[in-house]
């Protein structure tokens, strides 16, 4: 299963993911620039990504907590999501996301 991630510098990466992993975990595991400071607890918004329009409908709706956290970022867009809240499955094979500036480690 692959996901396609564009980093903050505009470089595209094809990453191998596993069923049941969180997208944040895949991005972090491959060493891209993602802070993910709460480790997936949906408590910090530092794994913020923009989801490619064609994949948005395939994701479960964000929870109210996720919406609250996204609102607290400086760079929220209509296709913003927290990558720790996206669980990989067969239907998301090929998912395309872009790392938001606010997810950068430094």
């Amino acid at each position, binding site marked *: 299963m692959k996901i396609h991630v564009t980093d903050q510098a505009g470089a595209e990466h094809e990453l191998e993911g596993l069923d049941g992993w969180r997208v944040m975990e895949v991005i972090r595991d491959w060493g891209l620039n993602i802070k993910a*400071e*709460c*480790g997936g*607890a949906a*408590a*910090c918004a*530092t794994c913020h990504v923009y989801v490619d329009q064609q994949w948005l409908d395939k994701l479960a709706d964000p929870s*109210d*907590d996720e*919406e*609250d*956290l996204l*609102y*607290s*970022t*400086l*760079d*929220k867009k209509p296709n913003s999501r927290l990558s720790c809240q996206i669980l990989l499955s067969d239907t998301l094979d090929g998912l395309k996301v872009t790392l938001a500036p606010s997810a950068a*480690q*430094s």
Partner: protein
Amino acid sequence: MQRLRLGLLDIKCQFIDILDRPGGQCAELYPEKPIYDIPGFPVVTGQELTENLMTQIAPFAPEFHFNRMVNSIDKQADGSFRLVTDADEVFLAKVVVIAAGGGSFQPKRPPVADIEQFENSSVFYSVRKMDDFRGQDVVIVGGGDSALDWTLNLQPIVRSLTLVHRRAVFKAAPASVSKMQELVGEGKINFLTGQIAKLDGENGQLNHVHLTTDAGDLSVPATRLLPFFGLTMKLGPVADWGLELNDNLIVVDTEKFETSVPGIFAIGDINTYPGKLKLILSGFHEAALMAQRAKKIISPDERVIFQYTTSSTKLQKKLGVA
């Protein structure tokens, strides 16, 4: 955990933390989330773990200095360290242990244009002196405990108070939510579901906040704005302490967890070494080894005998159980 390990070795220590309570990430980021990989605890929340650790260190009468950040650390001629906080307090110590996690917790700035120009004059991210809010038109934004607590605390002394949150659901103590709703019912405060759109004012003095609400766009009188959007971690002054860093983490050895400056240690998420795992478990291990080396620096002539709490009456006396 470093307090227990240091306490068992008769080392006194002072804790300095930018948060207003103990627990760091466990208490701030995931107090209600279950943790499943703490040895001996099939499941424990971040807050429960913090409370258990506080109970465990109670025999050593820990001294905490909250709401403070260490700005500088300077090595003295005698090898000890002089630390100065952002409250201009000075601490002298033979050993410094940095257990700062992802760095200093600092308030998130809300996504509103030009908010910087009002910060520290009309926009505040915490309340240091309640009197600064007396007789003011106050807008509080957020739905957590900080927003609700300050709504209740400030209401009696302000001229007007408007609480704004994205939705009418709060992540705060139910009693605080009920009390807030009573005040709304009595007409003593306003509650609006919406978001800040724009700030109005001049020379750093705010006079109105424009809101996008369910009832349309509104303008609310505001001479003080308190946004509570949670906290984020920033490395902060640690970067200026002359320690070897790697990707904003402090490089340590794995024998003593000492930094590139002898006498300064780093444990927990803030450090890095080959094979590092950012686990709470790792922090416990690192604290134990750090304490052994710290003892040798603090009491170089004292012979340290390695003992177990299960069998040593000396250690049990320190723990208050013998």
